[in-house]
């Protein structure tokens, strides 16, 4: 053990300073949700909608433009390749956590996101999470597990995963919600002391993602539990999860409004 301690100390600090300072969030080059530029969209073309595997893009009925729901997007980038113009562009926009499900649906006039539903002050500085996998591909778990590696070191932000739902403030759900997981999921929620909150993490938990409609598979958390925060992504990367947790706690601003990330 002494050996490990010595080499551990000698290798120095591995933890990033982000999000407090700097931009070393570890996601350089990682692609996020496609960015929609309606001015470049060609009327009558629906190539992106045809390419979308999860129903996130639907051609508008009047033939002009598209209806885009980031809550269904799995960031597969197929639409950015199918678009004959530059109306859908690859981007690094992955911080897509929102309070209201509607903020994931693209609208032209960028409404101001609702500011309601903030955590009471007493919960903001130390958040305890119970995670439940309700039928994921293990991608979301892989990224959630990464939060406790030395690079992200989630504990430094006062955020902890707990073993028992009895100690948890937030239920973080991943996966499409399969039929057999429905009862264990609800039992976990019932076991949490109230008030408690629910976050849908990953596109499967938000809307069902690509698994939606499979035999035995549900369509995410909508109508299953009262969701307080939505984080699409396939999977959301660890930095996106950290931003979402801090935004949920009211410690960072929500970056997406009406489908526009950072006002773009």
């Amino acid at each position, binding site marked *: 053990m002494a050996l490990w301690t010595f080499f551990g100390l000698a290798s120095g600090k591995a933890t990033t300073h982000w999000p407090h300072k700097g931009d070393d969030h570890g996601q350089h080059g*990682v692609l996020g949700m496609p960015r929609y530029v309606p001015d470049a969209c060609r009327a009558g073309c629906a190539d992106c909608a045809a390419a979308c595997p999860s129903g996130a893009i639907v051609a508008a009925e009047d033939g002009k433009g598209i209806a885009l729901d980031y809550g269904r997007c799995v960031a597969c980038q197929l639409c950015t390749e199918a678009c004959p113009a530059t109306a859908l562009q690859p981007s690094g926009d992955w911080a897509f956590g929102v309070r209201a499900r509607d903020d994931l649906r693209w609208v032209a006039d960028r409404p101001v996101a609702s500011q309601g539903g903030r955590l009471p002050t007493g919960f903001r500085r130390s958040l305890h999470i119970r995670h439940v996998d309700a039928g994921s591909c293990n991608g979301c778990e892989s990224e959630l597990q990464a939060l406790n590696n*030395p690079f992200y070191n989630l504990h430094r932000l006062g955020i902890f995963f707990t073993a028992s739902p009895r100690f948890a403030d937030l239920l973080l759900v991943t996966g499409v919600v399969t039929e057999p997981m429905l009862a264990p999921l609800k039992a976990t929620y019932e076991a949490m002391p109230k008030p408690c909150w629910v976050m849908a993490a990953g596109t499967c938990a938000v809307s069902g993602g690509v698994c939606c409609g499979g035999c035995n598979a549900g369509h995410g958390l909508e109508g299953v539990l009262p969701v307080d925060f939505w984080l699409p992504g396939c999977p959301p990367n660890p930095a996106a999860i950290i931003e979402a947790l801090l935004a949920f706690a009211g410690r960072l601003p929500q970056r997406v409004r009406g489908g526009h990330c950072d006002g773009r």
Partner: protein
Amino acid sequence: MKGCEAVRAAPEDMPGIARALHAAGGRLQMVYAWQPEPGQTELCYVGYPQGGGKFLMWRCRPRADAPSLAAIWPALGWYEREIMDLFGLVFSRHPEPNRLVLAPGVPPPFAAAGRDAGQRAADVPRPLPELVASGVQVLPFGPVRADVTESAEFTFFYTGEQILHYHPHLFFKHRGMEARFHGVAPAAAVVLAERVSGIGSVAHALAFCHAVEAAAGCTPPPRALALRVLLAEMERLVSHLHYFGHLAATTTLKVGEAEGKLLEERAKQILGRLSGSRFGRGLLTPGGLRRDLPATGWLGPALAALEEETSRYLARLERSASHLDRLIGTGMLSREVALDQGATGPVQRASGIDRDLRRDHPYAAYATLPLEVAGATDGDAAARARVRAAEIAASFALLRHLLGALPPGPVRTTCAPEPGTEGLGWAESPRGTLFHAVHLGADGRLSRVKIKSPSFSNWRVFPFTVHETNMMDYAINEASFGLGVAGCAR
């Protein structure tokens, strides 16, 4: 079916064929069902002859019940139960006719008319032993377990520290992924393949693309084949580094855990920068890659730095007596059980079965690359860890060789399988043998995709190393297998 040598067989001849294959030193690996026409169910058995060679397939169309082969090849037991659950076809004299993927009472979603599996002896979820002695405690653990884990329920029968019997129930997460492929165009379905098992995204996409390419008879250009190896080996590094961080956690080697997980993170960040996805998603497509990878000048030095740190880390694990003490002799898996129950990947290689699809059934650019296949014969947790450590070194060596000689040229060719064609594709995922069998319909879209994931095989084997062991070793043994639930449940 392209990609294998397929022959027709009568259902009643299958036991004889299975016994002959066993006697000749070959291996039967899986069986799956599909419906070539409405109301008709076909069984496809996949195996390989002694010494490797082409994959073999026997296809038969049972009119009534099919004979169970589980007594000859125990590994087929789970495949047959899955077919009973999903297709309503009954395998006669099955030793464990219990439900596997679906809960009791759920009707088979793909049953041919008139079949409802009503003849099954026991429509109960799991074959648990009957408890007659007092003093034996039963612990059902899960499906929601401590920490961030995948959902699964483990049932322990134990007295004190001693586990008498162990049973995992792994299908809470069954999402019906195979059925999701139905009616999807082959190129679009790669997105689904990448989401069968997130930690095996590249391997699943690769096996699926191979199957579609076999059906179409197309070969991707050399640069695409080389870049596929690059992605697949990066995925192996991420997976194996995660394995060591997790294994160190179970032996309570805290700094070893932190360092392993940090190395995994570094590998993930390299993969993210290289491919745009920390899981290597969004690049593979039938016929090659969707786009060329950007300039990779930074990749060589980044991998060299990771390799140096990794080899120091693995050497330190080998010098940690407290860690090794918990691994040596833990979770013994004999060669015989590994073979009969269908162990795969590093698990079978640690039990003396020298098999690696990258060498034995080469795909992508592996045939042109120097690949050292690691092996061991001890069959314990230490052997499984050492095989993975050697595979990490081999992956780095492969990557170094590959980056020095990346062929130029295009990365994509046309791949349009004819309607009604079929193909078998495979890949050696970090966890072992992975098959995708693809059948196209008359409309050129997918009519059936069967996915055989490595964890489906290794979860079947794992309980045989748990019965009659003790509670304190359980987590270590489980970590030493490196199992995933999503790929198993699909």
